[in-house]
């Protein structure tokens, strides 16, 4: 009888088997470790930049989003945004900025656990981290859309500026400003981690799927019942 825990953890591999096929069994773990390092590092790096260019700001205005903070000329940008009735950027993604770091730590713990699970259940632990960069950008887009489309109709420039959706990545424009949004190194690292994790899943499947199949076959055979 295979217990539920064993079913989830999957077959263990004999040490001599591991040492003969160190690459086959080592690869998933190493890749998961790399992904963890990348994600942990990304915590300290900016995820997103926005530059606003206009004649009267020769050096431009800059805003940088970390997972847990907004930095740069946010106050000045807020000051300008009030003319078109946009809410303060500090009110955007407040919950995300509070929980972002914990989610990332949770991902790292999940990836750590995934290294011990040799069944398809590992996918459940790895997939959230894989999709994280996409989720980040979608969330960013939704917030910008929400802010851009819900302008205060009583704002001073409400006649001149119609509701709009600011661009989350790439070039946009509003009034005399050209906006340039670019991914930060943190987001790039998280994206690299996603690809590393997809590779880890591939090698995981290659290493453990035969063992799982083998065990299932053994379990199904009447002789061992």
């Amino acid at each position, binding site marked *: 009888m295979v217990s539920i825990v064993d079913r989830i953890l999957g077959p263990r591999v004999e040490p001599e088997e591991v040492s003969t096929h160190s690459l086959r069994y080592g690869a998933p773990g190493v890749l998961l470790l790399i992904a963890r390092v990348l994600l942990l590092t990304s915590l300290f790096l900016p995820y997103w930049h926005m530059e606003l260019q206009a004649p009267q*700001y020769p050096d431009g205005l800059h805003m940088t989003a970390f997972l847990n903070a907004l930095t740069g*000329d946010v*106050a*000045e940008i807020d*000051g300008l945004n009030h*003319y078109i009735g946009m809410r303060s950027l500090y009110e955007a993604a407040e919950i995300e900025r509070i929980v972002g770091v914990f989610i990332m730590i949770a991902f790292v713990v999940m990836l750590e656990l995934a290294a011990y699970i040799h069944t398809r259940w590992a996918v459940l632990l790895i997939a959230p981290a894989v999709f994280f960069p996409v989720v980040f950008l979608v969330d960013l887009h939704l917030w910008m859309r929400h802010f851009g489309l819900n302008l205060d109709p009583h704002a*001073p420039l409400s006649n001149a500026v119609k509701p709009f959706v600011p661009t989350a990545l790439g070039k946009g424009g509003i009034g005399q400003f050209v906006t340039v949004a670019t991914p930060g190194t943190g987001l790039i690292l998280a994206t690299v981690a996603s690809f590393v994790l997809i590779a880890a899943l591939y090698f995981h499947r290659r290493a453990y799927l035969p063992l799982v199949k083998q065990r299932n076959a053994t379990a199904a055979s009447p002789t061992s019942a």
Partner: protein
Amino acid sequence: MNIKWSTGRRLAVLLAPLAMCGFAATAGAQSMRDVETVAKDRGLTTADLIAAAKTYLPSGQKDEYLMFASGGHAGQIFVVGLPSMRLLRSIAVFTPEPWQGWGFGVGDKIIAEGFPNGKSNLWGDTHHPALSETKGDYDGQFLFINDKINARVAVIDLRDWETKQIIKNPLTLSDHGGTFVTPNTEYIIEGGQYATPWGSDYAPISEYKEQYKGSVTLWKFDRNRGRIDKTQSFAIELPPYWQDLSDAGKLASDGFFFMNSLNTELATGGIQDKKPPFEAGASRNATDFLHIIDWKKAEQVFKAGKVEQIKGFPVITLKTALAEGLLHLTPEPRSPHGVDVAPKGDFIVISGKLDPHVTIYSMEKIKQAITSRTYSGTDEFGVPILDFDSVVEARIEVGLGPLHTQFGPDGYAYTSLYLDSAVARWTLGGSYGSSTPEPDWTLVHKTPVHYNVGHIAAAEGDTVSPDGKYLVSLNKWSVDRFVPTGPLLPQNLQLLDISDDGTNMPVLYDMAMGVGEPHYAQIIKADKLNTWTVYPEVGWDPHVQNINPMAPKPKMERVQRNDDNSVDIYMTAIRSHFNPEHIYLKQGDTVRWHITNTERAVDATHGFAVPVYNITASLEPGESVTIEFVADTPGTFPFYCSEFCSALHLEMMGYLMVEPK
């Protein structure tokens, strides 16, 4: 066919780069030929074009030097960029100035500190700016300026270019020998000018010799506080000559300072009674007296308490000064203007405007003469006079009406010639001599200027390390240089290029100064300053150069009525609104109106102007000010932002409503 086709293709290949060249030529079509055309059309010579090329700054390029010029009657400082000669801004000092919001609610207390004998006085006659120095070189931290009309000294902080202190001299009513600083800005020297009784008390001029006093004041500068410390300052009584310009010694002459004087004849005028007028009486003698004062010794005498309290201020009396050996005189050409110490401190150059020579004194010889008591006598107050021939190093005939001298880095000295309307270049001797191609102590060249030059200022030309390159001739008369501006003509500040050797010293640019008469100016390398572009933090009080904990902050705006019927208004200003916008007061309320500009963007200055109440303030980013007044006039007063701060600037206003009693 085949051949034709390939020729065509080859042609196309050849033409393509040509077409690109053609395009490039169209895009940058201008050539030196166009410059020639413009020059021809406008009648410009090659020299004019070179002068233009040396001074023109394309938009966005910045000046290499800043000239801090006195503003004369304007009672301000004018700051000019070199080589462009663009007026960058003025700094309000003794005179209220609305754009800077100086004296219309803000700065009033500082101006009032300088009121002579408690009487309101809302202008100044600024003469000699002095940049603070470290080891005899400009350090770009502070600027001082005197007011000749009422004997006052002001301190300006060069982080925010604002006046921080005005101090009234308690002893004298006019100063001309200020401001000059000692090599580490230990003291700011303020020499009195027209002798008066102490504190300008009443005494008939028949008692001139007994009652009228000369003096020099040494103001102690506290660099940490950025203020003159009056409690550590003192004055020295001098004979009732009219002490004139001064200069602090440095290096070889460190510890001394030098002052000119006129009217050593003690003339008292009286043209109305057919007595010789001052202009004749005060220039009767062939020589006046150079004062040589040992300030380090004087400081010890002051610290030892050997002073008399006069008008509540410690004075080393003439008697004590003589007993302690602080003061020596030596003859100088009559009616002198400048006394200027050479970069190494070893020579002192004096020009008497009625003598065509510059006279150069040697510090080494002065020290020897003091030690060996080589006196030619004493004056009628008992002050020892060092023998002229024993202390003079050289005399050079430079031209008519020599006034002031500045120095280059290469052994050249420059002297303004008021009557000749020229700037003379001459060579120093001694250890400077080898760096010039010409022989020592020789006139090299005179460049005509337009007209009647007073002071001149060379780049860092009165420090231990002059830069050369540029010299500005501050001309008193412009006559025909500009389009007539009515019978009152602007001053003409002319830029000279002194970077070359010998006789090449051309005028590059004429700058009209139509807002006051600059006297002296100092020119500092712009990168020496650490100027703030916004105040360091929101809620900054420029007067203490720190955060004001009581400054209004966003979300703390309110109108607070106190038990004593005074009202505190806590207001913020940001593009494009004040908060609060409605202010209700009752007639007779004492109001303290606190406003903080909460902006952090460079140049996001707001004004605050209230009609009828004579209030205008300039709030630079981060600045917080408090304006106090009594709401004595009832009515409805739209107040507004007086700086075009944003597209909605007109809407940046509010209503002050004062309910009648």
